């Protein structure tokens, strides 16, 4: 079985030597060397697509390396499945939670290591399972409710469940993959504190991220990965600019270049909007927003506070239960998505692989996905392949879409290029309003710069732009005004010069210290947080 002896707080020294992993022609990891000392918080820094997750999947036994070895406490180990990794004392908290939504917390934590009442039937011992959850949760200061269904928990709580799950397996090295992607700044600070606490008990932590700020706040050492290779292992004293340059391989400007806005008429007016989510729970609870021509309104807020539903409702993808949405005083509520798009509205959905592009279609086909029945691409009855092809080639050029040809299947493109296809599609027609939800999620830095520039360009053309993003830096960089959403309401609309901490507080629902915030819509600092 090879399970490490169960002695408390045995520090674990981990070495990755020459790890190489290929997927066909693509070399995802190229002779990676990393050492993790016992009790240290080691950050793995790299941009989207650098190969970090692949590396960690091998460390956790989900994949096997083609070359190289994993050495735990001086002994080379082979992990053929997560079981082996767990037995060696390694646990993982994935970026996309590995929790069964319809199970309770206790069931999720028990899964795979169930306590049974003995006997061949394997009847579950629910009481012991609950107790174990409560014990571990108290020991490490991670409050969770064992009987609640995971799907009802907020994201921060779900993450705590994942961590407790790993800790109940007696791990000594914990891998956290992009853990702060879904947290408010406050929750992020709490998580960082938890990590520091765990490290002090002797656990080692490997923490994967692309966020420079966190890395400098918490890491003992930082390894930068770029294009599948280790670039350098350095200390957190390194400057942010230098780290960014190491991540991307060239000097990057972290700021978006833009001039002052020149706002004109009000284009989009949302008033008292009420929308439910898929489960019938109120997601947008009376939102008022205005976007003017020639400005960017950024909507900040942690994922899950109603932004998704807001945007979907405006685009006709979700029923509006109350309130109004108008564009230049034309009503949009109840209109079909096609009608709304034809009203000179552009839309970038937040999950491109789900509902942005069709992977099995070519680039050219994706570029006409909403215009195939309009001249010159078609007449509603038949398609005009020549026009489609010519238009596609032009846009591939204009938008710098890296692809072999316009007839390549979109699924073969990288994430950033797929997003550029969506951007190209939406920006290639005259627009009054442009809505972008999480426009650069999972996209490489080069494409991020490109997309940001195009958004600013669109604004300067007089289009009204609405950008929803859970990356605060992006919102602050792009927006001329920022609306902060929390639990389905807009708490305040502030200027991008507002100090980050204040915006962070708003994102967490604290309305105290912010002038002009909607009273009673959030809550004060001194109150009890209805913490789940």
């Amino acid at each position, binding site marked *: 079985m090879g399970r490490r002896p169960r002695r408390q707080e045995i520090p674990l020294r981990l070495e990755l030597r020459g790890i190489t992993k290929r997927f066909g022609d693509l070399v995802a990891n190229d002779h990676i060397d990393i050492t993790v000392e016992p009790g240290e918080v080691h950050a793995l820094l790299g941009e989207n697509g650098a190969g970090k997750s692949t590396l960690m999947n091998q460390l956790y036994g989900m994949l096997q390396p083609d070359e190289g070895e994993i050495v735990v406490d001086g002994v080379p180990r082979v992990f053929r499945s997560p079981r082996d990794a767990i037995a060696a004392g390694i646990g993982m908290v994935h970026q996309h939670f590995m929790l069964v939504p319809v199970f309770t917390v206790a069931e999720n934590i028990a899964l795979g290591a169930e306590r049974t009442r003995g006997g061949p039937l394997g009847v579950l011992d629910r009481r012991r399972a609950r107790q174990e959850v409560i014990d571990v949760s108290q020991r490490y200061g991670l409050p969770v409710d064992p009987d609640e269904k995971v799907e009802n928990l907020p994201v921060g709580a779900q993450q705590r469940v994942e961590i407790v799950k790993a800790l109940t397996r007696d791990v000594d090295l914990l891998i956290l993959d992009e853990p702060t992607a879904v947290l408010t700044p406050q929750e992020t600070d709490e998580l960082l504190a938890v990590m520091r606490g765990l490290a002090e008990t002797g656990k080692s932590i490997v923490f994967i991220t692309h966020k420079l700020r966190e890395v400098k706040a918490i890491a003992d050492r930082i390894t930068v990965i770029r294009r599948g290779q280790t670039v350098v292992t350095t200390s957190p004293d390194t400057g942010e600019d230098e780290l960014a340059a190491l991540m991307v391989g060239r000097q990057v400007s972290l700021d978006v270049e833009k001039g002052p806005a020149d706002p004109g008429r009000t284009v989009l007016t949302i008033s008292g909007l009420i929308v439910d989510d898929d489960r019938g729970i109120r997601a947008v609870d009376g939102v008022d927003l205005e976007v003017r021509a020639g400005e960017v309104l950024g909507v900040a807020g942690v994922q899950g506070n109603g932004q998704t539903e807001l945007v979907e409702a405006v685009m006709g993808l979700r029923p509006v239960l109350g309130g109004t949405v108008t564009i230049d005083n034309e009503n949009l509520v109840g209109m079909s998505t096609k009608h709304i798009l034809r009203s000179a509205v552009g839309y970038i959905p937040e999950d491109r692989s789900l509902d942005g592009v069709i992977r099995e279609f070519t680039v050219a086909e994706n570029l006409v996905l909403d215009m195939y029945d309009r001249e010159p691409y078609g007449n509603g009855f038949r*398609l005009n392949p020549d026009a489609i092809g010519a238009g596609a080639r032009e846009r591939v050029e204009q938008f710098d879409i*890296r692809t072999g040809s316009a007839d390549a299947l979109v699924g073969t493109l990288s994430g950033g290029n797929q997003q550029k296809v969506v951007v190209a599609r939406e920006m290639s027609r005259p627009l009054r309003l442009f809505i972008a939800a999480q426009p650069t999620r999972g996209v490489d830095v080069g494409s991020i710069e490109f997309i940001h520039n195009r958004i600013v360009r669109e604004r300067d053309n007089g289009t009204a732009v609405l950008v929803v993003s859970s990356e605060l830096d992006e919102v602050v960089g792009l927006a001329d005004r920022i609306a902060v959403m929390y639990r389905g309401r807009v708490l305040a609309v502030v200027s991008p010069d507002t100090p980050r901490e204040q915006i962070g507080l708003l994102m967490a629902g604290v309305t105290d210290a912010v002038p002009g915030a909607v009273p009673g819509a959030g809550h004060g600092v001194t109150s009890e947080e209805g913490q789940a």
Partner: protein
Amino acid sequence: MTATEAPAPEKKEQPAKESFATVFVQNLWSANTVVVTILSIVLAMVIGAVLIVISDSDVLKTFGYFTSRPSDAITGSWNVISSAYGNLFKGAILDPAAVSAWMHGTGTWQGAFYSISETLTYAAPLVFTGLSVAVAFRGGLFNIGGQGQATIGCITAAVAGFASGLPIVLNLIFALLAGLIGGAIWGFVPGILKARTGAHEVIITIMLNYTALLFLTWVIGVGGVHDPKRSDAISKAVPTSGQLPSFGGSLRVNLGIVLAVLVTAAVAWLLKSSAFGFELRAVGANPAASRTAGISVAKTYTLLMVVAGGLAGLGGAAQVLGTAYTLTPAVAGNIGFNGLLVALLGRNKAWGTLFAALLYGALQAGGNRMQSYAGISLELVGVLQALIVIFVAAPALVKTIFHLRAARAARLGASMAKGW
């Protein structure tokens, strides 16, 4: 979770150009679709051969003393297998005896072409039902209801045929249209239910199959439909003005096959070059992205099932106006279910479906002769047809059995797995 790819991988060295012969041989032994199809057929026939041997009690007896006299078992098996498959071929393509008879003047040209005629006759309705399934699949729907839609098409075409009183040509067109509309209605039901309630079309269409069959047995007995001169379950006959013209005599092949080819071309055009084809392919590939881009998934599903139903209905019409001429409880045969197999074999492509239908028509025609001359049950044809598709649908399986190399560019039967 896949890692998002790193931007712009380095360019690779171009391999040296290979000679044509090398490429040809390499492709021959790689798992591209043509090779896989042929090998699947071979594999199916091998298993069929085993079944033939098992079901022949005389040959089974010789296996009883296999160790002492293996030659009996071997020759016995060989005889029965070759007799079966020989007749299969003769019934499907041509019978050398009949051809040479025609050459020497002792036989007619009809006799020589009889087998091909039978193949084309059986193939024609299968083209329609196959296209019905294929088009639906491309749009992301499982149309298992081809049998029911074809049955209703038979009914409406036949009734229109003998009740309309229209003159020649007009009657035929009217009856064909009636068949198409009947099938379209039967396809509309699962389509609208899917669009409005999300009800899964597999169950609905299967239930409608059985309902259609029961409806057929009832309708045959209804006054006005039932043939008053007969006491058994048979309807009035469609007059010649409503029938699909054929060569006459023993050659049953009729205009249906020509119609089938034309419809295949139309469907191919629809899928590739029409706006509706674009919509249904988009919805089939990714309904969420289609919806976000403004395509109405509900409308597409409904229209798609209407089209699919109409195609299957046309198949029923071809069956009844081309060969059967009257309604009996078994008039629709198995054309709906075979249409499913045909579509799968044809990889859900229009022309592929046509060729697959020809193959299945051949198996049907050959099977008839195999049953009459070699005494092998017609059910074997059903088994072969199913096995071929099983192997074709899992090219990986055939690959493993034959140790084929992975094809470099070909995408093999990659259907997306769907649940409910």
